[in-house]
């Protein structure tokens, strides 16, 4: 961990200026990921701009029939908010399936969007990593890659995005409000994270001097037919090998609208509009779900240690859509798979 200076601005604009003023400056809020990365010497910020106490960003408010979640709303506050639990239970379940209560009490909505991959090599400064040090290579491609991506990979990086929250947000078509030197803008969640391509060092489309101020949820929350199914190597406190956020709007036994997003399989929450379109208007049958799964995974590629994820994802998609259609979401309290 390097020496750094620290400041605590009183307003968003001031925070943006502070980060702009110094190369290597970073925002910090809950610090559940950044502090870890600093201890591992993966991140070496020259200055930390603590936005954790900025006023007005820790509220969940009604907005245009949906909800606007301030960037500083903690994961716990988000998951247990009655409006979220009633109207967007998918989001609540996804958040509660990640990390531990202690971490969720500290971690913020904005920080969760920006958490970095759990790739073993990214975390180990004794090894090469294109994400950490561009151009050094990706040992994961031919190395230990049990937790790595099967969709949207590049030869330069096969890391995954580790968030559960973001998978639900992708399915819910959330968008991210950001502000920066150029003013405010809004980024669809689908466009917020990016694929590695030849720039794996960039996780998102957010500018280095831009700050997340809120996440917007559109009115549709799919509270009747949804599930968040997370498969992992132990029953709690582990990142997803594969997770599936499924949300349906049913019309009797038929699907009026479908949302499907996957975690643990790509550099970003993986949403497949084609698979969703395929399900629209179809009876909610295992055959339909299997077709959707096949479509989602048609370009999937395994790297040895993670090849099993292709079959696991296929089965998980079918299970998740079945749970959603039946209105029997995966419970959180009892971790066993329903």
């Amino acid at each position, binding site marked *: 961990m390097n020496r750094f200076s620290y400041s605590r601005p009183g307003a968003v604009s001031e925070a943006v200026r502070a980060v702009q003023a110094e190369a290597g400056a970073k925002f910090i809020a809950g610090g559940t990921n950044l502090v870890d990365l600093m201890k591992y010497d993966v991140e070496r910020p020259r200055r930390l701009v603590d936005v954790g106490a900025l006023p007005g960003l820790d509220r969940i408010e009604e907005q245009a029939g949906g909800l606007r979640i301030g960037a500083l709303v903690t994961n716990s506050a988000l998951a247990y908010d009655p409006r979220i639990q009633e109207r967007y239970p998918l989001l609540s379940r996804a958040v509660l399936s990640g990390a531990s209560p202690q971490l969720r009490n500290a971690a913020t909505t904005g920080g969760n969007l920006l958490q970095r991959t*759990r790739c073993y090599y990214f975390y180990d400064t004794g090894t090469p990593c294109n994400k950490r040090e561009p151009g050094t290579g990706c040992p994961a491609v031919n190395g230990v890659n049990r937790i790595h991506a099967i969709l949207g990979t590049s030869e330069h990086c096969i890391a995954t995005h580790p968030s559960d929250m973001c998978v639900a947000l992708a399915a819910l078509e959330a968008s991210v409000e950001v502000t920066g030197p150029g003013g405010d803008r809004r980024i669809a969640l689908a466009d917020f994270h990016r694929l590695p391509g030849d720039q794996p060092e960039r996780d998102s489309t957010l500018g280095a001097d831009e700050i997340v101020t809120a996440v917007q949820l559109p009115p549709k929350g799919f509270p009747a037919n949804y599930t968040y199914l997370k498969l992992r190597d132990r029953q709690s406190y582990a990142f997803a090998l594969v997770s599936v956020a499924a949300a349906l709007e049913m019309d009797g036994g038929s699907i009026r609208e479908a949302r499907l997003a996957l975690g643990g399989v790509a550099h970003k929450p993986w949403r497949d509009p084609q698979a969703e379109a395929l399900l629209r208007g179809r009876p909610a049958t295992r055959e339909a779900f299997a077709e959707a799964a096949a479509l989602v995974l048609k370009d999937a590629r395994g790297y040895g240690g993670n090849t099993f994820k292709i079959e696991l994802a296929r*089965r998980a998609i079918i299970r998740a859509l079945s749970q959603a259609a039946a209105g029997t979401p995966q419970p959180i309290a009892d971790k066993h798979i329903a």
Partner: protein
Amino acid sequence: MPNSETHFGAPRSRVDGRLKVTGAAKYAGEFTAPDLAHGYVVSSAIAKGRITAIDTAAAEAAPGVLRVFTHENRPTTAWLNSSYRDEVAPPGKPFRPLYDAEVVYSGQPVALVVAESFEAARDAAALVRVTYEHAPHETNLRNVLAEAYVPPKERPGIDPPPNPRGDAAAAYAAAPIKVENGYHVAPEHHNPMEPHATTVVWEAGGKLTIHDKIQGAQNTQSYVTSVFSLPKKDVRVIAPFVGGAFGSGLRPQYQLFLAVMASLELKRSVRVVLTRDQMFTFGYRPDTIQTLALGADREGRLQAVMHEAIAGTSPFEDFQEVVVNWSGLAYHCDNVDLKYKLAKIDTYTPLDMRAPGAPLGMFALESGMDELAHALKIDPLELRLRNYAEMDQNTGRQFSSKELRAAYRLGAERFGWARRSHEPRSMREGRELIGWGMATGVWEAGMQQASARATLTAGGKLEVAIATADIGTGTYTILTQIAADALGLRMEDVTARIGDSALPTSPIEGGSWTAASAGSAVQAACYAVRETLLNYARRMENSPLANAGLDHVVFTAGHIALRSDPSRSVSFADAMRAGGVDRIEQEETTAPDKGNMAKFSPYTHAAVFAEVRVDEELGAVRVTRVVDAIAAGRIINPKTARSQIIGGVVFGIGMALTEESMLDHRLGRFMNHNIAEYHLPVNADIREIDVLFVDEEESKANPIGVKGLGEIGIVGTAAAIANAVFHATGKRIRELPITLDKLLD
């Protein structure tokens, strides 16, 4: 027996419990000293090669840095390899930190940055630039199997496989029922909660007080005096608490060497704490590849057992543990051939980890027995009863005691084993397949020579002292119970002192031998105190005990009373006054009885029953129920004993389902080196664990009739779970851990 036992056998809470939960118990990295300097280790990025350049200029110039130690500027230490051998070192040349430019494993310490603060040291450590010349390395055991060898030099205390008996190959060929398979358990790291740490308190004149994470303070003391050529009187090691170790603290590790080196050189106190990822840069449970062949007649009686294991070891030491010998003693069989070999890979030397060797070998044997039961359509428990070993055929000795039959029966009853259907995939609920599996566990009931001191004051306070350790097992508590009973005291009047090299000699805390070894020594010392006390009391004028022998009195409530008439008594204080002393101090040494050891084999046994539920489509496994019935002689404290077994079972669940240290063979490096990605079981993975202790009279293994409980809980557990997975799914998984991908096919 002059006293009845009030505390021995009773469930007592830990005497150190309050200290632990309030944070008052101090661990190695928590001791401090004025002017304490902090060391941070720089670890090698390559597995094999040479350091061609090491640039420490930037680190040395960083604020607060006192010194950067590397192989180029390290002070001279002992010349001979043998000076670096510790109490439990395997044969070979122990690793010598910062010895030269050679890199022999990935993560090897290549520099120590010492600074005024931990933060300054860590910051500067990132500025050390190391240039390497790579040499080809090999960390994949499967690639070196052809070079496997029988270790030329035995590791003391580790029995090599017994000589073959009968003609296993011929008996196997003739057996009507055969199973032969390969088995593998992934390498594991100990991952204790407390990372390895050493705080060296330097005093003017060069005396050192060392607080080290170690399972035996005297092992650290002798290592330090030998390596740094220091007189014993100048090195005291105080390690009163160990935050979990599971074997990782048996041998002095490199942070100790580095902290002492820096302290002597800088002439000030130094602390070195390893990071969590550096906890993956020394010993581990070795990669071990096994083959097992069992031949049986049609009634299931074993005709042949052939078991071979090849284990990885480091280029510099021949680590050895007992993997295959269990297959020669767990069941009766007259044709047995067991082989154990090593092959060198470019990692650090493996290190004993909870029940070293046994859960590996017993995973193979107990999986094989389950496969045999399935092939024969015999209930797995019935198969084991048909092959029950009445004696230890490896040595030809009788067991000192063996109530395994009772353990099978009581465990099966508690579990409801009789309701098990034979066929795999025959029990289900909803989407989950349910499986029931069982296995036998076995571990040696060892005793080592140990000395203890007991000191009784006229005020009726007793202190017992021995240089053993409590690694969380409950040693403080059971020693207190034993001592209190010996003198008829309340536990509150007894203090146990351990974890200090200045105390009477004790072996390292390991092998499940501490209760037997330290417990017997403490009892003997207390008995000596008792005898002295009675002698004083008898000498008193008009003593009511004038003619009483030890058998005629009881020690109770600070008095020695006549058994026949308890109203006639002498207080401890009066007896001491009569003896002209204000305290009685006695030291005693106990050791295994040679006569008994020549005739009897002492072992603990377990019958483990497990229930799993497996999501048929997704492969996710839950262990919903474990019953572990233990035959381990007398149980000193059922409460701490139960905790020991629960901990062992949790370890077994980890071995069965989640734990795996993943090597990148191209880099020669363990990659999942933190506890987010190395999956120890968490609370959500653990459901019902039911522990039973079977009555077992033990009079030969040691004077107090105990057998030790630290290891037995893990032995057989992984096998029982794997057998339950087979019963649930019909899939036989012979490679642990059973992660969900292995059940997807």
